[in-house]
């Protein structure tokens, strides 16, 4: 009750114009966003506080995926699951939907996006599906999220997108896979797919990092950035037989570093990384595999797997302070370091793919 009271109090102050511009610090909570499915089969977006209580729940028309948090204001954009065409802008104080945007004709969202450093622009990964071209949609966040531009993503099938800290350099995971909404998620170009990491600033591709040719079927899908601009990336193997690695890290101007793991641990992930995070000190990468039911941690310094934990249907992952939090389709959510296969909280929803941190603390 107390929390609700505070939220209503803040909302009231806002309505009365007593607080000129709320910031994340004013909100206090929530600290995470996650899409979810409820027991009655409907889809929602949840705001989750540090005590892992759900602070708000917003209905979504279809299944959600990831979200993008505004860098300074308590505002976030939640995206539909691929090949969805809508995104909703949420006030994270009140949990109220402020606006809704739709992808332009002939485009669909991939489910990820990010804001510019000053929060004035929103960038979304999109598919120009007739041309089979990856795009970054550019939206004016200060003008009702008007569509103002679109840029080449530097590859096919852009999925995750992040911004390097303290800059407006975007990094895009071009998964390499061409799909068309008319054929659902059928992959149309596996023999020729060529994933990459593309760095883009102001519409210009500044650098492209690629994988060795024999790994061209390893789709780079999810990203985590560190304070020094390190980019950890998680992959999804589209080839047959064992995969060489599912995790790598890159820094602009340097070669890609691929992480190693023994064959059995790697195999346990079933060729699939669903989410990736980098610890706040940049020393640990954690990746989740709902298919394998494992979270695996890699030591960045050593370049190798350091720990593997079994958690059924685990997928969401986010860093809060010194801890890595994960969430699962079973409804479990909690920090990793508590040990054991059971997480701290069991909620009455199915947590979807991504856990999005929304505090800048």
């Amino acid at each position, binding site marked *: 009750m107390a929390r609700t009271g505070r939220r209503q109090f803040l909302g009231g102050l806002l309505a009365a114009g007593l607080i000129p511009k709320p910031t994340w610090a004013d909100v206090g909570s929530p600290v995470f966003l996650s899409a979810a*499915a409820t027991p009655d089969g409907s889809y929602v977006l949840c705001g989750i506080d540090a005590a892992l209580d759900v602070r708000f729940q917003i209905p979504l028309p279809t299944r959600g*995926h990831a979200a993008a948090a505004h860098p300074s204001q308590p505002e976030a954009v939640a995206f539909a*699951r*691929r090949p969805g065409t809508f995104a909703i802008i949420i006030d994270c104080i009140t949990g109220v939907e402020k606006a809704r945007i739709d992808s332009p004709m002939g485009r669909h969202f991939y*489910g990820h996006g990010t804001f510019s450093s000053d929060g004035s622009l929103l960038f979304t990964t999109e598919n120009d599906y007739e041309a*089979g071209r990856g795009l970054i949609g550019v939206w004016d966040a200060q003008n009702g999220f008007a569509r103002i531009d679109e840029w080449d993503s530097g590859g096919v099938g852009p*999925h995750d997108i992040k911004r390097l800290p303290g800059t407006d350099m975007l990094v895009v995971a071009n998964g390499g896979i*061409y799909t*068309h909404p*008319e*054929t*659902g*998620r*059928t992959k*149309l170009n*596996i*023999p*020729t797919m060529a994933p990459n990491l593309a760095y883009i600033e102001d519409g210009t591709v500044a650098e492209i990092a690629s994988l060795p040719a024999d790994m061209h079927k390893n789709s780079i*899908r999810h990203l985590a950035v560190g304070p020094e601009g390190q980019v950890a990336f998680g992959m999804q193997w589209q*080839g*047959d*037989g064992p995969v060489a690695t599912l995790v790598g890290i890159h820094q602009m101007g340097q070669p890609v570093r691929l992480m190693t793991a023994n064959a059995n641990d790697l195999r346990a992930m079933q060729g*699939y990384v*669903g989410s990736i995070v980098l610890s706040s000190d940049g020393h640990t990468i954690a990746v989740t595999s*709902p*298919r394998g*039911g494992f979270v695996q941690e890699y030591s960045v310094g050593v370049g190798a797997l350091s720990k593997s934990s079994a958690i*059924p*249907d*685990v*997928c969401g992952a986010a860093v809060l302070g010194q801890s890595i939090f994960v969430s*699962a*389709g*079973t409804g479990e959510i909690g920090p990793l370091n508590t040990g054991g296969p059971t997480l701290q909280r069991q909620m009455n929803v*199915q*947590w*979807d*793919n991504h856990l999005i941190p929304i505090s800048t603390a």
Partner: protein
Amino acid sequence: MKRFLLTAVLAATPITANAQTATIDDIVNAHILPRFQTLAETSAHLATTARNDCSITSQTLQAAYSDAFDAWVSASHLRFGPTEVDDRAFALAFWPDSRGATPRTLAKLLTDQDPVIASAEDYAQVSIAARGFYAMEFLLYDEALSNIGDADDHCTLIQTVTTDIATTSAAILDDWKTDYAARLSSPDASGTYRSEEEVLQELFKTLATGLQFTSETRLGRPLGTFDRPHPTRAEGWRSGRSARHVGLSLAALNDLALRLSNDDLDISERIETSFERSIALLAELNDPIFTGVAAPQSRLKVEVLRQSIDSIRALVRDELGPTLGVAAGFNSLDGD
């Protein structure tokens, strides 16, 4: 406590080890090997026929092509192991070809009179889009392409493509017989498959992906959207084979699904009933190349057919999957 644990394990995996081995052996010997055997034989016959008569109007050549293509479609869901080495499956079947790479590449080879068209061995190095059954369909049935270039070159190209198909099909069969069948039948800790359960999961995945492909691609492409149907994106419409492929794939997937579910009579019967329904709906359509997708009433019937296949997918995912130890989690099934 020990007894409790044992009971729990048995409850979670209702199929016993012996039954698992029998199921795998049955699928390898009665489902997989005969399909690749037929593919190799009909492809060899196609290559020989083309060497003797490469005229695109030749009934013998068209019949040989049809038989070999049938054999491929009936095996096309078996996408693991030998079919994936060197992208062999794509070398046999580059479809869907959303960017029109197949006709473009073939036209260029003919226009340039590229010497590669005379060597099946070298031809394996050309763009994968210009190889296989869909390239052959353009060479045999596409009016624009049959008028490009020199007639002798056209003939040579047909002979080369069919020889390449035969070589690829023979290599797949050879790998299955000399190596991969044993990997499935005798899983071991250091092998490709560590347990019978892993083998069954691979076979399950192949069933689920095959159903998905037939629904989303074989039917999804021509259906397009209500406002923008695309009858000429149907598979094999030039040779009149679109509905035939849906029928062949349903028959093959039905066979695999029944073999995978033969230890659970209830699931097995429901699978059979649901396949029968889809096959009956397809027959009722009586629309060989799905031209009906463009007219509202006939389109509805194609949509109903697709929905019936999607209900098989749901049955397979929700009921058959768990009996084979496949996790049906909210995220594990999502794939993104």
